[in-house]
């Protein structure tokens, strides 16, 4: 896709940490709804939402794609969206939801609009509390 964009790519499924941005909120329908604007989070926000469990299970965060520093990077691309796209059918939507990071999004750069139709079905952290311990 738009690999010519020289801006650093952003990970749309980053950890909740100060400096990251909240870009989506899990809705009651089990899908993620997106914020229109980049909204940086701080430790207070993380503390607030952590009372209900790990933030990554109920929110989506963006931060810089760290490429080879990430276990999901295979050397030239993010494997997450590749695996998700192999397993799921994109949501049939004529128009894409607003997104604060689209043009810089790593997944969008790899998969284009299909990434945006898969993204609402992805939760960053699916582990049980016991698994995470």
């Amino acid at each position, binding site marked *: 896709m738009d690999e010519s964009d020289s*801006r*650093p790519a*952003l*990970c749309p*499924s*980053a*950890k909740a940490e100060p*400096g990251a*941005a*909240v870009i989506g*909120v*899990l*809705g*009651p*329908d*089990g*899908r993620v*709804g997106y*914020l229109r604007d*980049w*909204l*940086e*989070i*701080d430790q*207070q*926000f993380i503390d*607030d*939402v952590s009372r*209900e*469990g790990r933030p*990554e*299970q*109920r*929110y989506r965060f963006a*931060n*810089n794609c*760290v490429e080879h*520093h*990430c*276990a*999901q990077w295979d050397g030239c691309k993010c494997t*997450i969206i590749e*695996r*998700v796209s192999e*397993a*799921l*059918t994109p949501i049939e939507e004529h128009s894409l939801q607003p*997104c*604060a*990071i*689209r*043009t*810089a*999004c790593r997944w969008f750069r790899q998969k284009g609009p299909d990434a945006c139709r898969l993204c609402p079905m*992805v*939760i*960053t*952290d*699916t*582990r049980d509390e016991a698994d995470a311990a």
Partner: protein
Amino acid sequence: MPENKDKGPDRRTLIAAAAAAGAVASPLVAQAAGPAMARKPPPTKIQVDLGGISLPPADAEALQSQIRRAVLDAIARAGVKANEVPHGLNPGWLGIVVRPVQIPQVQGAKTHGVG
């Protein structure tokens, strides 16, 4: 001939019909897309435009910070609770753990206003 004890709808028939109608993308999606799922309410828009009012830069920055704090608080409240999501916190897509692991803290590399 074995007796058919189940007088209800045949589950496989229902799934096949739903799949034929394009309603079910995969078994995993079928599992997650239950009738108990609630519809999302319409998104909330909050816009602040001070119009012709001009504030000193420090006051404007403080106000901006307060608004940002209030919005973050609202988002924190808007997040669903564990017991509010049908089928658990996550629909269970594939069981993929997409959380990056063991990555170093990234400092000073934030991108604002993209997209």
